[in-house]
């Protein structure tokens, strides 16, 4: 609680501050602020990456940054890397060929190597943890604005939240489902993935993630993956270890779909891998309304291949009643898709 005396005191204090303030701020300092030197130093550690893509709405460029004096680059794992050699161009114009050293399919990160000593790199082992509310800078070649020796872009913002990526409910499609820094600036644009997030002192905080959109709200998420989450993987990848896709650690849905709810009865399950043939469709059920019929063979649930009745039942466990549900079925010699999403 503020006491009245302290209120009275503050007026003169403020005047005092003003007088000091005017004397101590030179015009040029005020104009440029303190971010310029930080920006220049950090930008020298970033690279513009060029690889596969350029067709079907897939960009052929993304961002990355050096993490070792031997020219290792940290970036996100994406289709851009689907080439033998990528081109990595630094902000000082240095152009190097880079190849993929290793990937972590769970974190969707990749480490590339140029074999050339960069003019600067981030120390990935000495990174700091960010606080919610902290001011941050994002360095990336978003929209591929910078070309050749041009410097990549810098944006400023604040960390709005530190939270787990809620990718489970189909709101946001993402393989990575862990801790993220959510940023209040538009940092995650095309080409920005793989860029660096730093604090205002230029210390590395995280890796700008891939573009993520909330399917329902149509809102794009601006986020970075904290370096602390990536550290173990980076160490493994740098030492040449291979990281394989983790077993599905999905937890069953709170309100899972069931065949009964959908109105589907399968043929009797008599074999070890009985095909998922529909025996009966309940009139007026979800399945009926969607147009499924007897003798349809269910081949896919969303993107998961169904090899047996058991795998169908298992897969439905992971799908909430509110989630999207699309079945691909074989009917006679035709393949047909049926959308059973929604209530």
């Amino acid at each position, binding site marked *: 609680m503020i006491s009245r005396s302290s209120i009275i005191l503050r007026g003169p204090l*403020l005047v005092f501050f003003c007088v000091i*303030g005017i004397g101590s701020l030179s015009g040029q300092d005020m104009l440029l602020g303190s971010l*310029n030197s930080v920006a220049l130093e950090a930008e020298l550690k970033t690279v513009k990456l060029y690889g596969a893509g350029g067709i079907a709405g897939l960009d052929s460029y993304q961002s990355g940054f050096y993490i070792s004096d031997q020219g290792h680059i940290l970036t996100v794992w994406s289709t851009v890397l689907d080439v033998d050699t990528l081109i990595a161009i630094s902000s000082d114009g240095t152009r190097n060929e880079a190849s993929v050293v290793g990937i972590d399919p769970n974190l969707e990160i990749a480490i590339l190597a140029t074999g050339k000593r960069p003019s600067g790199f981030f120390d990935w082992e000495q990174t700091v943890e960010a606080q919610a509310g902290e001011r941050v800078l994002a360095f990336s070649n978003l*929209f591929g604005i910078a070309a050749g020796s041009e410097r990549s872009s810098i944006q400023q913002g604040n960390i709005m939240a530190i939270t787990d990526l809620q990718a489970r409910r189909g709101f946001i499609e993402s393989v990575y489902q862990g801790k993220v820094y959510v940023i209040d600036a538009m940092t995650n644009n095309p080409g920005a993935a793989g860029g660096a997030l730093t604090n205002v002192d230029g210390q590395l905080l995280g890796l700008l993630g891939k573009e993520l959109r909330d399917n329902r709200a149509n809102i794009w998420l601006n986020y970075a993956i904290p370096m602390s989450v990536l550290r173990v993987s980076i160490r493994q990848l740098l030492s040449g270890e291979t990281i394989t896709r983790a077993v599905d650690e999905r937890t069953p849905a709170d309100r899972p779909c069931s065949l009964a709810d959908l109105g589907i009865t399968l043929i009797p399950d008599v074999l070890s891998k009985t095909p998922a043939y529909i025996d009966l469709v309940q009139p007026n059920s979800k399945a009926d309304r969607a147009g499924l019929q007897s003798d349809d063979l269910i081949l896919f649930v969303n993107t998961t291949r169904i090899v047996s009745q058991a795998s169908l039942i298992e897969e439905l466990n992971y799908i909430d009643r509110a989630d999207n549900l699309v079945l691909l079925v074989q009917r006679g010699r035709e393949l047909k898709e049926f959308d059973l999403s929604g209530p």
Partner: protein
Amino acid sequence: MHVAQLHYDSSHGRGRGGWVLALALSLAVCWQDATIGSELPDVSSKVLQAQQDRMRVMRQAAEATISIFGLDGGGGGSGVIITPDGYALTNYHVSSACGDHMRCGLSDGSMVDAVIVGIDATGDVSLIQLLGRDDFPTAPLADSASVQVGQWCFAAGNPFMLASNRQPSISLGIVSGTNRYQYPDGTLLEYADCIQTDAAINPGNSGGPLFNLAGEVIGINGRCSFEKRGRVNVGVGYAISANQIKYFLGVLRSGRLVDHATLGATVSTDSAGKIVVSNILSSSDAFRRGLRYGDEVLSLADREVSSTNMFKNILGTLPKNWRVPMTVRRDGETRTMLVRLTGVHTEKQLIELVSPERSTPPGPRRSDDPTETEKGPQPQQELSERLRGEPDLMRLVPDKQLVQSRLERRPGFANYYYNQMNQQRLWQSLQGQGDFATTAENWEFQGNLAGEKTPFLLRLDDRSGILRIGSRELSVDFQESVSDVVAARDQRGLLVALRAAQQLLKTGPFQIGDSVYLGTAPVYMGNSQILAEQPLMDVLQSLWYDATVRFSFDASGRIALVEVFGDPENDPIELYMNDYQAVEYGEEKFYVPTRLRLQYGTQTTLLLERQSAVLKPSANAASSSVSEEKADS
């Protein structure tokens, strides 16, 4: 936060001691009002001061920022006033949607009429003039070359047409990139050497200023990168640099449809990373100055060419007709040449590009749309709805009479009124050099070749000119082709150019031939080849016999340079005139140059130092009194 704490407590304390709490609360609120931003007691005084400074700068910046509307409430965008008499900058894609008469809202709530002055459709800049006052609040233009990545900046303007009370919205950000090159759509809306910012730039911000924290305009916001996220800010906005605008300001004031420059040569990056000439037109001035295929380009217009994009950045900010230095390296040897730039478009193309049928600029590119409001129906619809609720905006009727007095439509011009006004201005200051119209038709100059004893005699009347240097005599009959003299590249060029100057002095721009005020351009009077050191001079272009003449005027309104252009593949005659001295004739004084320098290309071919001058009335005028006055140099 103490205040928040108080609010919380008060909700608990009602009924019991509520009075005391209410008092404390109101005191706290007063305290908060008085010290916005200072409620955290341990915030450094410097930070608080910086915030106070920033708020003050933003208030001032807002005063010079305007909202622009079409007469019917359509179109719309932002702008910034740069002179007290109301000259203001906006985007071409904003002004084109409003036509040549628009309404501008100032932050004090007033609405004033404005007319179009000049259009740079290629650079997406329009100059307009707000009418009716000569004390408009202004914002200064910064030196945008000093803009640094990471520095704070803020945009002011009218995003989403929110400024129904004419108070501009301010959005703070940093400079995300400098020297950005954004490809044009066709040949329009090229953003060269622009400033990239993460300050929110949304539809309606177009044409508005981007300020540094000193309140100087570093650029004019015009474009955003959009992709699949709809027409809203995605953290990437582009501003046209203040330095490009400074280059074009003098040209835009001419009331013309102005054009950007081309070199007549293209560059590319070779395998060694050098920027080399990859194509060159043999008809270009650059070719005549010695630029060749394969030359490594080191600098253009005083700026280092570090990449092909940088070359386009530099060239893209220069106006047509300017002459700039270019440094190249060939076989290890470095040479600097002055090159004349030509236009991207022909006059006809420019007229077509800005014709009403095309008044809406070309469609959006994949990721770099201008932030046009007219494309997005929502803001405009919203605006009309706002206008209905805005009685004063509806009531204040445009002053059509005032606008009409400042508006003259003519093909090739944004507003011919301003061209005529500038021609009138030049003619007035020429008339201050002496009453050449009635008294002086026949000139006789005598002196020496500079630095030599060889004498010269020069005679000029309305039919012919004679130049005697030592025992040599050259003569020109003005009834014959002027452009043949240009093609001949000889010393008779001096007579031709001087005759053009004489005739301009006598008849003025409106009678010498079809005249157009071109705006300002650098004139290289001395030995320096540095663009920044050259004065920007007013340039008047007149059709004269079978040639085109350009007159450049020094700061006191005297003719400093006469250029006579013949066929485009020939270098023009250039006659530099300086060190003007008064020659008396009766009661009257006439100012004539003492130094006359003839140049073709960049080679001086004749340099005369005049000692005496005799100005006589023409033969058919009264020739009673003739005066000779030795120049007192």
